[in-house]
């Protein structure tokens, strides 16, 4: 195969690649990568092959590798039995709410810290920086107490979506991401808006947010993937079966169905996650590189 010079990113140079000994190394590198990928994708392949087997075939000894017949008809059956429609609706509602609360409030704070900088805001800056470094985990019990007996109002938020939306209003890392992005937006835009009679809030909504599509999209993707994976807090808060989001729903179904049906349920969840990934790939990759800013 012809090697293009622009494809070379490693320590091995273009001229060196013509040497036979180096070419063998190079072949080995590709071979090891292929091996790695085969081993790592094996569980998924097994999932796909097993999910479409009938219960009888799944438990048969010796086990078959390829199903005798792909039982596609199980897909709608499992989807309905698991009530995945409602689970995804709940996931969507949690994600959408969390996304709005995250972008509006962390965005506003990032905007104030980046552009308005009122007296005393340095303190907030420092506080956010240090709080980001604090280890989590300790807060499980007191947070649960906060949700079951919300301060001042003294109401329980159990079996509502508020415990997923309200805490999204403050996230140190997201605030810093917004702040560093807004820093790159020229102050002249805001000044021009102010001369035209825009207040701070209006300037944020009409000027800053439309200019910040990449970061807004990245944050939206964070919210969506977060909600797809979120399991622990839903387990504690959403005890009502009708409110369960997808990861918790899947966990709750453990032991409730035959193995092959359960594998199919897992496959459906994986498939939908993969589609979401492919749709937002650009912003997810952006998110990974933005994650590097944290250093």
């Amino acid at each position, binding site marked *: 195969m012809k090697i293009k010079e622009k494809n070379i990113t490693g*320590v091995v140079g273009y001229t060196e690649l013509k040497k036979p000994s180096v070419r063998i190394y*190079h072949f080995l590198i590709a071979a090891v990568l292929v091996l790695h990928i085969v081993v790592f994708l094996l569980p998924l392949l097994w999932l796909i092959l097993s999910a479409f087997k009938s219960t009888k075939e799944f438990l048969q000894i010796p086990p078959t590798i390829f199903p005798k017949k792909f039982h596609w008809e199980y897909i709608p059956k499992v989807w309905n039995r698991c009530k995945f429609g409602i689970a995804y609706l709940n996931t969507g509602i949690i994600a959408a709410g969390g996304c709005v609360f995250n972008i509006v*409030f962390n965005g506003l704070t990032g905007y104030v810290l980046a552009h308005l900088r009122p007296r005393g805001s340095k303190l907030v800056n420092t506080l956010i920086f240090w709080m980001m470094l604090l280890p989590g985990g*300790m807060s499980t019990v007191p947070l649960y107490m906060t949700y*079951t007996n919300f301060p001042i109002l003294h109401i329980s938020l159990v079996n509502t979506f508020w415990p997923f939306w309200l805490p999204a209003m403050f996230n140190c890392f997201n605030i810093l991401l917004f702040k560093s992005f807004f820093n790159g937006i020229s102050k002249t835009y805001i000044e021009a808006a102010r001369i035209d009679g825009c207040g*701070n809030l209006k300037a944020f909504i009409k000027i800053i947010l439309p200019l910040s599509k990449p970061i807004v999209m990245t944050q939206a993707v964070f919210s969506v993937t977060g909600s797809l994976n979120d399991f622990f807090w839903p387990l504690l808060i959403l005890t009502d079966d009708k409110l369960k989001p997808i990861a918790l729903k899947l966990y709750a179904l453990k032991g409730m169905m035959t193995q092959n049906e359960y594998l199919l349920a897992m496959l459906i969840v994986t498939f939908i996650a993969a589609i979401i990934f492919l749709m937002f790939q650009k912003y997810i990759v952006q998110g990974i590189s933005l994650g590097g800013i944290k*250093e």
Partner: protein
Amino acid sequence: MTRRNAAKATDTAALKRHKLKQEFLSDFGAWMLMLPSLLAMVIFSLRPLWMSMVYSTFEMHGFEPVRFIGLANFKSVIGDLLFNKALLNTVKYVFWSLIIGFLPPIILAILLNEVTVFKGGFRFLTYFPTIVPGMVASLLFVFLYYPDSSGLLNMLLGMIGVEPKIWLDNKNLTIMLIIVSASWTGIGGTALYYLAALQGVNRDLYEAAMIDGAGIFTRLRKIMLPQLVPVFMLFLVRQMIAVFGIMQEPLVMTGGGPDNASLSIGLLTYQYTFTYGYTDKGLALGVIQFLLGLVMTVFYIFLDRKLNKD
């Protein structure tokens, strides 16, 4: 003359006052924009911190504090055999995550950096397991480790004539196997993160070294790796801190079993509070976990400062 000066003085004073007022108003407005976020910070971050510090010294009745009992909760947690087991297990989790999670992504990143064909495809397929939701990954591995021949691992062993073995329910293997399943989703993402760092190295350095007669492995060892040691070290410590709080994976995969062999500190906090109903012990253990995490974080900051100084 003097009257005019006086008028001017009051004018400037008024102007100054006006300006101050204006500034105060705009500052006030700016603070109001941050207010919701700051309120959320107090309610969901600072107050819980304070609550766990205070309530961990109280006898709790359900989720209500009853009376102050000093450090008794901490004493009863530290004296608890379960805590000792969980602490030891957590150390084992961190150990295995270092063995399994440290070198492989580095090697993968180097390979992905060197390969010259199907670059995009290799990258995508390496990353692919990271797309699988964590819950599915944990549950899928429960099936792979299934103790009869319907599990993938036993099925593969069966092909070479080995009898089905017990995996997750084996006390000696369970922690390692849980880490393997967690690494399955993690390694691809970490490798791509490292790859981004590898591609930040200036290629002219390799060319220059090549002209000076440095072989491929010399270049790798002497030029590429030294520049990336800080990235690796910091990631390693971050991973240690993350694995130290492991809870979801054992909760989903084993529930802490067999015989508490996979019980972690995070899981024990959950069990104290929500399974056994010892809220006070849960709070105290939370504080202990926090303090241990804090020690690691301080170490991280120290390392970060030291490595990024030069």
